């Protein structure tokens, strides 16, 4: 039976962490302990949110690419599915299937959502509901448009998010849940949606008997990562970055009492960055809220892998973890404003350095190296005479000019490059790669120099070595494919050749 990991990414932070996770999965990282399917679920009322839409697009592209790769065993090897696919046994791919809808948030204010106007003001008969509400919510809160989220107000989020528990999407989640499956949540503690949504979700996982297959869900291993403040804003307005820390403290106290002490969750990861933090452009939700990718989001994605690695330690009974909630924090080996792989601890470095380097090499090649090889190198030729059909490549000029390649592979790779670039420009920067060109392609990893000396040492660090490996492997049986399955050839070929090249040049073992 397929063993699934449901990942609930709540709010913008959740979306960005799921994006980071998707990039790691694309580079070939795989969840341990036989988790063969990842089911990302994005929860955010801010449907126009830049980060959300970007993540949804990335997930869609991931699926479109992976579905065209036959038995991927390198890049894109982890399967990602939507609830819709699982529930309806459908193969439809749409970015919308990754998001749980929140009804009534598109064009309403908070006061409209709660039906404020219809509340009584009869203070004489102790039915002064309106004023009661005014005690809890400011006028600003009430007038707040929900379509851009809760603007850092978890008190609003708690109300609105509650409705989705009874939503069809959530029911489908329950229907598809099996006894071997697990759940992981991602939220920020200082935001609006994440702060409110996380405890709400947890309460329903463990205690909502109306949830289909509640018996499996309530005793399923659940992990989560909560983000403490790790960035600030460049101005103060409706959303006040100075309140992030205060809100975090309040929320932590709440988590301690209601979640940790009650062993509602098996493992809770905390991550944040105080001090030298990045300054983001102020935006109140919507497409403008498109924060630069941050290293901590990548680190958060590592928490998912850690959770799966230790899944066997997480047992539950009667909706409670058998052992105390595992509290985990993230750290790096060396504090630096520009973090490279060598600054990470050994296990994290080993986990992501090689896959990311391979994928980076692959995207760099397609951007900067393909032009030289196109129609010249054997591995791009489909019209070689006097050889078997298997000797001809499907990765020809026609493939690289196709819409399929441009709209899927190229787009995904651009997202990856943007993600790497943004992390490199953030604070602290995650900058493990050098800028390279055709001649210095293999010098892409900081602090690691290619060590192999061939007949022509100059060419040994260029893309030529990759082209040579592509030629060597293009006819291999697991890469050979039909014209319609170009992605299979591309993904599998580069999955193997990038690995070979980096190992041969002793950049990685």
């Amino acid at each position: 039976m397929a063993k699934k990991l449901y990942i609930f990414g709540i709010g913008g932070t959740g979306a960005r962490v799921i994006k980071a996770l998707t990039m790691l999965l694309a580079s070939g990282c795989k969840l341990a302990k036989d988790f063969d399917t990842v089911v990302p679920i994005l929860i955010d009322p801010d449907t126009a949110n830049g980060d959300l839409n970007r993540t949804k697009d990335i997930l869609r592209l991931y699926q479109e690419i992976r579905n065209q790769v036959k038995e991927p065993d390198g890049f894109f090897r982890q399967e990602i599915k939507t609830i819709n696919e699982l529930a309806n046994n459908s193969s439809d791919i749409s970015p919308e299937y990754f998001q749980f809808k929140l009804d009534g948030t598109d064009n309403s204010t908070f006061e409209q959502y709660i039906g404020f106007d219809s509340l009584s003001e009869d203070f004489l008969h102790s039915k002064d509901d309106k004023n009661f509400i005014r005690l809890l919510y400011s006028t600003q809160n009430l007038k707040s448009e929900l379509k851009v989220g809760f603007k850092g107000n978890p008190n609003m989020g708690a109300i609105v998010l509650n409705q989705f528990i009874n939503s069809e999407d959530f029911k489908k989640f329950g229907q598809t849940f099996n006894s071997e499956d697990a759940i992981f949540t991602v939220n920020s503690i200082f935001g609006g949606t994440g702060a409110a949504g996380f405890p709400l979700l947890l309460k329903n996982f463990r205690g909502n008997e109306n949830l289909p297959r509640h018996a499996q869900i309530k005793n399923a291993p659940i992990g989560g990562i909560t983000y403490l403040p790790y960035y600030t804003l460049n101005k103060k307005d409706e959303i006040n970055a100075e309140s992030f820390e205060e809100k975090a403290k309040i929320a932590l106290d709440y988590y301690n009492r209601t979640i940790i002490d009650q062993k509602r969750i098996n493992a809770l990861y905390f991550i944040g960055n105080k001090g030298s933090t990045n300054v983001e452009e102020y935006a109140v939700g919507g497409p403008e809220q498109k924060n630069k990718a941050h290293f901590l989001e990548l680190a958060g994605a590592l928490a998912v892998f850690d959770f799966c690695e230790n899944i066997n330690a997480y047992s539950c009974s009667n909706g409670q973890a058998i052992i105390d909630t595992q509290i985990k924090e993230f750290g790096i080996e060396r504090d630096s404003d520009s973090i490279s792989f060598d600054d990470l601890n050994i296990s994290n470095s080993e986990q992501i350095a090689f896959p990311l380097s391979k994928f980076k090499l692959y995207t760099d090649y397609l951007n900067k190296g393909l032009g030289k090889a196109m129609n010249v190198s054997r591995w791009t030729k489909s019209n070689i005479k006097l050889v078997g059909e298997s000797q001809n490549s499907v990765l020809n000029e026609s493939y690289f000019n196709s819409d399929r390649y441009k709209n899927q592979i190229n787009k995904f790779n651009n997202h990856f490059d943007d993600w790497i670039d943004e992390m490199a420009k953030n604070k602290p920067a995650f900058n493990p790669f050098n800028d390279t060109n055709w001649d210095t392609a293999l010098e892409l990893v900081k602090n690691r120099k290619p060590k192999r000396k061939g007949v022509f040492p100059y060419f040994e660090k260029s893309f030529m070595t990759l082209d040579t490996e592509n030629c060597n492997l293009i006819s291999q049986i697991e890469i050979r494919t039909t014209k319609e399955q170009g992605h299979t050839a591309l993904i599998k070929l580069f999955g193997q050749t990038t690995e070979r090249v980096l190992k041969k040049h002793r950049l990685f073992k």
Partner: protein
Amino acid sequence: MKNIFAPIYETWFSIYEPNYRLLFDTLYNGNGYIYLGLSFIIIPLICWYLFYYTWKFPYGNFLHWLLWMLIAVVIVFASTWSIANSEIFASNNQKLIEALNDPETGYKEYATSLPTMYGSINSLMALLLGFIFALFMKRYSKVQTHLPF
């Protein structure tokens, strides 16, 4: 083997002059023909083996292939010339030595042209055989499969 190679030169390409029979008999008896024949087989074989199985340059094109062919042919020519020259002018056949040293016989004048003729023939054979080797070897090459076409 000399009965395989000798007719190539003597019959196919008509490099045979009964008046200078001693030259050809010396090549025949002294295994000169074998060395000449193996030159146009082994050298192209090695050259094309190197091209298809050891030359890992992934941007090889038809011009590279052509250049390689030219190099192989030149090597064959030089090697053949050297072998023929040695087999004729440095042979152990006393009769031939005397004939070459005697201007009246005309042997030296005729023999001087032979290394170039053998070189040319072997170059042609290397070209043809090399082409055939290439067509066969390309099937099993990884990097240069697409050459010459």
